[in-house]
């Protein structure tokens, strides 16, 4: 079980940020909880389709990192009040209307964190 309850984790997701892009699909997360050190991104699931970290890009302050490069040796510093954009390359799972999104990552301090939200396009 996550240390953080779902009603709070959901607030990380920026509602309305889900969109199709030339690369695939993107959405934004904003850290409103506290300084975070991400030591891994396990996967992103969109409508039951799982995308592993090799096809996920994290864009922060205009710098892009492939999620599979994030590790405890190369953590992603996610400051309080900071935005990141998650891009899933070649994602075809997005559908018109409601989409279910799940992000699972590893935090240095609290371990596995799963954020499950839904958004429309």
């Amino acid at each position, binding site marked *: *079980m*996550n*240390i*953080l*309850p*779902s*009603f*709070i984790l959901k607030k990380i997701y920026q509602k309305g940020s889900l969109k199709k892009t030339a690369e695939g699909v993107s959405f934004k997360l904003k850290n409103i*909880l*506290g*300084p975070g*050190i991400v030591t891994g991104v396990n996967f992103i699931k969109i409508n039951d389709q799982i995308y592993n970290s090799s096809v996920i890009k994290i864009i922060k302050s205009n710098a892009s990192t492939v999620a599979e490069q994030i590790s405890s040796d190369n953590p992603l*510093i996610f*400051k*309080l*009040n900071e935005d990141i954009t998650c891009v899933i390359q070649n994602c075809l799972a997005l559908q018109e209307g409601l989409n279910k999104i799940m992000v699972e990552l590893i935090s*240095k*301090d*609290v*371990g*596995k964190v799963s954020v499950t939200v839904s958004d429309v396009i």
Partner: protein
Amino acid sequence: MLINYDKYSLCIDNKRTVVKSAAIHYFRIPGHEIWQDRLSKLKAAGYNAVDIYFCWRYHSPEPGKYDFTGIRDVRALLDIAAKLGLYVIARPGPYINAEVSLGGLPFWLLNMPKINLRNKKDGDFIYCETFMKYLREWYSRIIPILNEYHNIIAFQVENEYYTNEAEPDYIQELYDMARYMGIKAPIFHNDVLGFGLYSDIVNIYAFDNYPTINMDFDWREFPDSFGVLDHAEENLGDCKEDAPLYIAELQSGWYDKWNGPGYEHIRKLFGREHVNIVTKTALSQGITMFNHYMGCGGTSWDQIPSSEVYTSYDFAALITEQGLPGESYYKSKEINYFLDAFNLSSTDLIAEGRDVIGTEAPNVFAKLRQDNLNGCKWIFIRNLNKNSLEFNLESGDSLSVKPFDMKILPLGLELKGCKMDFSGMSIFAKAEQGDKEILLMLMEENNEVKLSGFDSIETGLSLEKTDAQLIIKGDSLKNLDSCEFIRGNKSTKIIFLDQQTSDKTWIIDNKILIGPELLTDNPEKAGFSKDCELKTIGINSEIKHRNILSREEIEPPRLENWQCFKASPEIDLAYDTSSWNFIKDGKFDCISNEIYDDYIWYKGIFNGHIEEIEINAKHCYSIYLNGRQIFHFDCLVYQEGCEVPERIAFNVDKHFLNEKGPNELTILTQNLGFDRGFQNELRIPRGLLSFRTIPEKEIEWQIRGGLTPIIEEWTESSPKNLEDASDNSYLKMLYSTFECQKSSDIYNPMVLDLFDAPFEKADIFLNGNMIGRYWKDKSPQTQFYLPEGFLDDKNILSLVIWEIKPEKIFEKGYESPESYVKIKIRNIKPFKLISVRELI
């Protein structure tokens, strides 16, 4: 006591007050003398409040039964706090976390039908009348005691409570209950999420803050870790617009776990810098109520600990488990003394960042606050870089900040004899009387103090002067250099100290005492571990010198009269189990059978051949077949804070089987505590959780809690030598005695040192109290504190040794005196105690 509050601070008896609190767990420091010692040490370090979790389970062994006597006499504790002039922040739960078993809830609650502990199930809020009924009973016992005291300044309902949807009903009911039962103090809840939870119910919004919780990383490499504190005023200040923000737990250490790195590592990791940074960052947010968690380490004796933690709960706290001041204690004293010198209970933010230091610098934090009481400004500046940094302030002043340091510096501070226009060196403390004051400052290279507004000066220092100001440069100062400024009939003497001297400097009745390493006993006694030249400085600058000779070497007590007994007759075939119960409803676990001892024995008989056994048990266990150990395991495995269930299957060696007749199975399990219920469910059973043979056999299981030596109280009467009664040797009891002379002029905490012990695992008992779980493979703890509250003139020390790995049993030969004499009692650091009145 009259308590009001506004957005700035509490006003206690009409005086704006910065609440400087530190947490103690009285149940981990058993004994009135230890309470007196630890609270005195906190008081001596400038704390004006103590935070106390009241642990429901510690007082309630059975439904309807409550014990507030002896080491559970919380009135005695509250009396000590009141006598010391400490305010109390009362936190009776019902849930306290505190890394205690079941989060402090009584075990008997687990057996109440259809109970949802804390009105929670699987993270969802499910109101439970049964739980509320017993909770009302707890509140109805503890609150009337609290109501006898007038120094309770705040009361917490629940602790770190959240559900999936954060329903407020439960917190509201607790609030109403506390008020109905007579609580007059402001009520708060401790929001673990720092998200404003329940702020519309409570009087004061409080949250906890632990920037550093992963001990595998050095916080110095992660300068963003303090982000929540850095934005506390901005993000949480509006949670209660008419009340101060309260940090109910502000990190001053962290707990170690089984398989953890050890407290030596954790203390090194935090150093003295961490508590300095978190506290001053909090103050930079205008926070006027904080509680350092923990103030004192303690011992998780008996069944106190949750399964996650081993015996020492040192916590790398300000005061160690053994009652000795740590580095962070002295740093906290420095901050508290400063806050005593200048009341920062009403300040407003004026500027931050670039507007203070004129530039953007990475990993630098700066705030400027207007002080509404002292009429000056304070600069809060922090450097989280690995090198010192120089700053040219917007005010035109310059200063230097060392790596990982934070300072609070005055701008335009009016003193009695002069005005301190600016200082790059920190103020440590102040003593004052009438028109005279002595200001103690921490000398620091590359920094200066600018002063003006005085008529004359008396000093032996060579000082730099401009038309308007006199400048004292840190580079030219020596320890205890001073200068006195006079304005009219008022004077301010400034004395500069180095860090080592400031650690040993104490303000008592406006006199300055330099030399003792600690103060204790109300605090009427000063402690010295080595020879020193003591200085006392009075308000008229009269200086007294005195040489203090510490005691001669003190010999620790010798453990004598060693005896060794076989302690597990239950393993033997045909052991008499007629007094044992049969397991209930086919369920093995401790909750189903209402057995809450650490150790649980199971015995059963089956006929014929089996191939395999499949078992799940917590936390460690051995299986004996026909009197021989055939398997052992420990399930003390956590992943990301969650226990990992381990169902094990293994083949049974047919040589141990009676293939044609009855076979006797014996299982011993050890429960290392329930989960603390922070991120996991509280109700996670212990003992044997599942068991089956393959092929499956019908077994009528019998069950009994406790070990024979404990049940028969071998430590309290003449032990029965079982040498002739049993051949098995899987559990042993070592038994010894020692004498201990208590003295009021010495503070000498002692430990049992098992570093050289020739066994892997043991429980340690001092006069019948289980004071430690030694487990070489699982924890770095090899020294076990002998709590003074359990020590008598004549003592019995015993160890129940469980060599869980059978291959070790025959190698060690610890039955021989040559081996167990390696177990020794050691002194940590004896202090000679001298009456403070004699010294000043």
